């Protein structure tokens, strides 16, 4: 019995032994299966994860191409800026460290929250950029406290600077951080987070040339993020530098001169100015965007600098020597973190400093359009140099009466004297005989009604109407009365200051359909343009009229001759009504511009070329609500041309 039990138990234990052996084998099989799953079935996934651990591909952002003016003065460059970075792994307490940092440098709570967020998603050994625009002073303050700030480190990066500031803002445009929309269009931007892209101006138009190509560094890193060795290294290719056609000397003068208009500047610091500033919201808005020019107008009021546009171009090469749109803004505001405050000030400014008036501002050309009408009539054979009309101060057409700007009329006029004195009635007559279609054709040949193709974004084409245009946009037929209104550059006609400069340049050039460019060209590049194909004799007659505007006894701008030292100039005034004048107002006598609210005053325009013999430069000036073309715009144009010739010469 006992032996039997003993045997029994031995059997039980042997069985248990086999069960244990079986369990051992099957559990080993289970482990083997698990290892097979990890090391064979899933190996590519884990290999990828391992590579991501092991290698850190750093994108080396390219150095952006610089912009120079035609004398190789820096217009847009790259300055070193200091970055503040933090490595969560080494920071004892990230939140505390950030709080401490905020007491030393400017670090808004929002940014702190951003860093904490990043720390949650990134491996702890990765550096997180806290600030990319440390000032030297902040850097110094941090450096002495660095012992208290574990995990905090510094780095260098480049940021865009515009040393000329606001002066070239509408030419350069600006670079600002990459937006989500840009990344959607061009995903290579995503891996270059510190690199900004051109948002407007030359920076946008030449983005491809300026940006360059990023380099790549594949670095082996250990678990603490320390680089072990550089495995491959593709250097970045810097963007191309560009030499612009702009002359900073002329640009500086033009900006000052345009904004001064016909008034005098006042000292900002004076008690009077401070008192006026305290209550004048318009002046405050002006100073807030960095414009510190304040004028004393004819009624002894303190007013902000004039707004408008001035553009000077070479009539042979098309190079734009100066391009000013006022008011201006500081493009450096956009290169880093644009403050909400600055953005609001720029955006809410009543005169819209961000608008480039030269290419995107639309103005009725007023009397500067009369050259177009005259040329169209001469070419059509409707008139000759000697064809005369009588101006009695108004012209009836059906039931309507169209007035000349001079109430008493000009008497007998021919094409030259009509340009000289800007007689409206003469152009009513010849426009009616020529017809709107031929006027439009001539306007287009002179560069109006279409974008000029200058290297700036968002250029407007303006409007040069005709029958079809009116039918298509207004749904009604063209009337002769509208031809009358169009003949003096009002009504539907809209142009940009750039187009008016091109028009003037083509009239002065006479043979080539010159087109503007912001890039500096070599001396022999002038023959690239298509022939203009306008009769030279007709052009000579028009130019004589423009000469008479300044040099005739009754010329509308004969008080503003360009000195003979510079070879003199020929031009045309334009005064554009922005409000219809009612019959009642006309009878009462028109209220003087200066006594009207600013927004109701006339725009002052002037186009000119110089020198008279062998012309070289064309200019167009628009002073918004500046009064009359002769008294406000003509002297501005004269002074800018004088400066241009003084700086650049005429050969």
């Amino acid at each position, binding site marked *: 019995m*006992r032996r039997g*039990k*003993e045997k*029994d*138990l031995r059997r*039980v*234990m*042997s069985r*248990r*032994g086999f*069960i*244990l*052996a079986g369990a*051992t*084998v099957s*559990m*080993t099989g289970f*482990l*083997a299966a*698990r*290892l*097979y799953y*990890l*090391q*064979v079935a*899933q*190996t590519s*996934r*884990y*290999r990828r*994860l*391992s*590579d991501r*651990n*092991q290698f850190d591909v750093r994108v080396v952002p390219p150095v952006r191409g610089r912009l120079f003016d035609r004398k190789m003065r820096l217009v847009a460059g790259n300055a070193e800026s200091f970055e503040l970075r933090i490595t969560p792994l080494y920071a004892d307490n990230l939140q505390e460290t950030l709080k401490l940092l905020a007491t030393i440098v400017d670090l808004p709570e929002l940014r702190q929250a951003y860093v904490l967020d990043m720390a949650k998603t990134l*491996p*702890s050994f990765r550096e997180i950029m806290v600030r990319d625009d440390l000032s030297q002073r902040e850097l110094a303050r941090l450096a002495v406290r660095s012992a208290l700030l574990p995990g905090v480190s510094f780095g260098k990066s480049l940021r865009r600077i515009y040393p000329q500031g606001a002066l070239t803002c509408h030419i350069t445009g600006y670079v600002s951080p990459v937006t989500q929309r840009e990344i959607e269009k061009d995903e290579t931007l995503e891996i270059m987070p510190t690199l900004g892209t051109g948002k407007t101006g030359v920076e946008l138009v030449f983005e491809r040339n300026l940006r360059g190509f990023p380099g790549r560094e594949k670095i*082996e*890193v*250990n*678990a*603490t993020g320390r680089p*072990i060795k550089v495995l491959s290294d593709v250097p970045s290719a810097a963007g191309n530098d560009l030499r612009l056609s702009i002359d900073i000397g002329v640009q500086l003068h033009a900006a000052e001169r345009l904004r001064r208009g016909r008034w005098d500047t006042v000292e900002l610091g004076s008690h009077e100015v401070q008192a006026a500033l305290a209550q004048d919201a318009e002046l405050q808005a002006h100073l807030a965007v960095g414009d510190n020019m304040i004028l004393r107008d004819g009624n002894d009021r303190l007013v902000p600098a004039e707004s408008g546009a001035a553009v000077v171009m070479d009539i042979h090469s098309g190079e734009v020597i100066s391009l000013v749109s006022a008011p201006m803004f500081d493009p450096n505001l956009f290169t880093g973190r644009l403050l909400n405050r600055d953005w609001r000030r720029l955006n809410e400014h009543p005169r819209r400093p961000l608008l480039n008036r030269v290419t995107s501002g639309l103005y009725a050309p007023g009397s500067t359009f009369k050259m177009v009408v005259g040329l169209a009539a001469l070419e059509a054979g409707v008139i000759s140099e000697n064809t005369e009309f009588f101006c009695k101060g108004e012209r009836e057409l059906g039931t309507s009466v169209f007035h000349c700007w001079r109430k008493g009329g000009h008497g007998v006029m021919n094409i030259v004297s009509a340009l000289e004195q800007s007689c409206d009635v003469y152009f009513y007559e010849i426009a009616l005989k020529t017809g709107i279609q031929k006027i439009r054709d001539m306007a287009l040949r002179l560069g109006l009604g279409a974008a000029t193709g200058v290297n700036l974004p968002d250029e407007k084409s303006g409007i040069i109407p005709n029958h079809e245009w009116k039918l298509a946009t207004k749904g009604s037929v063209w009337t002769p009365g509208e031809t009358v209104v169009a003949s003096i550059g009002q009504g539907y006609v809209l142009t940009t200051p750039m187009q008016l400069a091109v028009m003037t340049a083509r009239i002065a050039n006479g043979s080539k359909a010159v087109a503007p460019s912001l890039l500096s060209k070599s001396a022999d590049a002038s023959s690239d343009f298509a022939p203009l194909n306008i009769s030279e004799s007709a052009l000579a007659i028009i130019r004589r009229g423009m000469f008479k505007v300044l040099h005739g006894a009754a010329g509308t701008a004969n008080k503003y001759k360009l000195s003979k030292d510079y070879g003199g100039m020929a031009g045309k005034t334009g005064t554009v009504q922005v409000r219809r004048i009612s019959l009642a107002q006309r009878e009462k006598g028109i209220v003087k511009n200066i006594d009207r609210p600013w927004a109701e005053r006339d725009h002052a325009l002037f186009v000119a070329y110089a020198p008279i013999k062998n012309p070289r430069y064309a200019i167009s000036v628009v002073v918004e609500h500046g009064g009359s073309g002769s008294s406000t715009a003509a002297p501005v144009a004269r002074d800018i041309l004088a400066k241009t010739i003084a700086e650049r010469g005429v050969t």
Partner: protein
Amino acid sequence: MSLWRTLFRIPWHIIVLSLLLVAIGAMALYSASEGSWQPWAGRHAMRGAFGVGVVLVMAFVDFKILHRLSYFMLIAAIAVLVALLVIGSGPNVARWISIGGVSFQPSEPAKIAIILALARYFDSQPQDRMQSLIVYLPAIGMIAIPFLLVMKQPDLGTALMLLLGGLSVLFAAGLPWRYVGGAVIAALVAMPVLWSQLHAYQKSRVMTFLNPESDVLGAGYQIIQSKIALGSGGLFGKGFLMGSQSQLDYLPEKQTDFVFTMIGEEFGLVGNLFILALYLALSLSILRVSFLVRSRFSQLTCMGLSMMLFFYVFVNVAMVSGMLPVVGAPLPLISYGGTSMLTVFIGLGIVTSILIHDRQED
């Protein structure tokens, strides 16, 4: 018994298997220190040689001494564990004891003491009572007391090993199936109680194991990096000294608990399966000894030691491959650590002694 007879009876295949594992360990530790015998690989190899010496010496010791000393050893082990809890060597972790400049973990000899004591206990029980639960209750106490003491240290990994080793002796002794089933149910019921007894870091380890991606940079880091290292090793591995995860310090504890991962990264599935095969062979070799010996004490001791060794391997590999929470269980003979290696060799020495002095045909 003559010297030659003894030497002839020594299970040399067991010694060769263990030396192979020690050699693999030395190689892995050489790689873990970026190609240097310092600080781990050289000492590991020397300890291995010493361990084999211990086995050879124990071959001449009659196993009956172990039988006689087994209860005393268990009591001594428990006493040291209690003392350790009272004095403690670290602020929170009381695992080490230092005698004459040599530090060791008393929980290691406790493992062997439990198995020996249980084997003696069941050896002394009359055969006809083996079906009754009463017989097993003192045995459960013998497991529970050191288990709870080690849990308290806290050393979840070692405590688990004590438990599994002890329970496998109970099972081998013939614990009726109904109690096996009951124990499983009891364990499930005890789980929440046990859970509440765990330290915060142990709980977080378990939680992390259940969802490692929830805490990529904290406690889940080890598991994730270990899986990446294993998985990226592929079939044949990245080559000796070429494991980027290990060499670039992404892999934590690569010289101790995660050494298997490191081998897997550098030698791939092939290397890992080779090691598993060695362990299986070693465990089964020890288990086989239990079929060759006479006394129940000898049988149960061999079964218990075999299972304890295997459980170490299983828990470690399951842990590093992300199938069990990180509990802190070294890989026997390969992981760096003097006490654990010596314990394994003492276990092998006991098996050798039993085989030589308690063979059935004598």
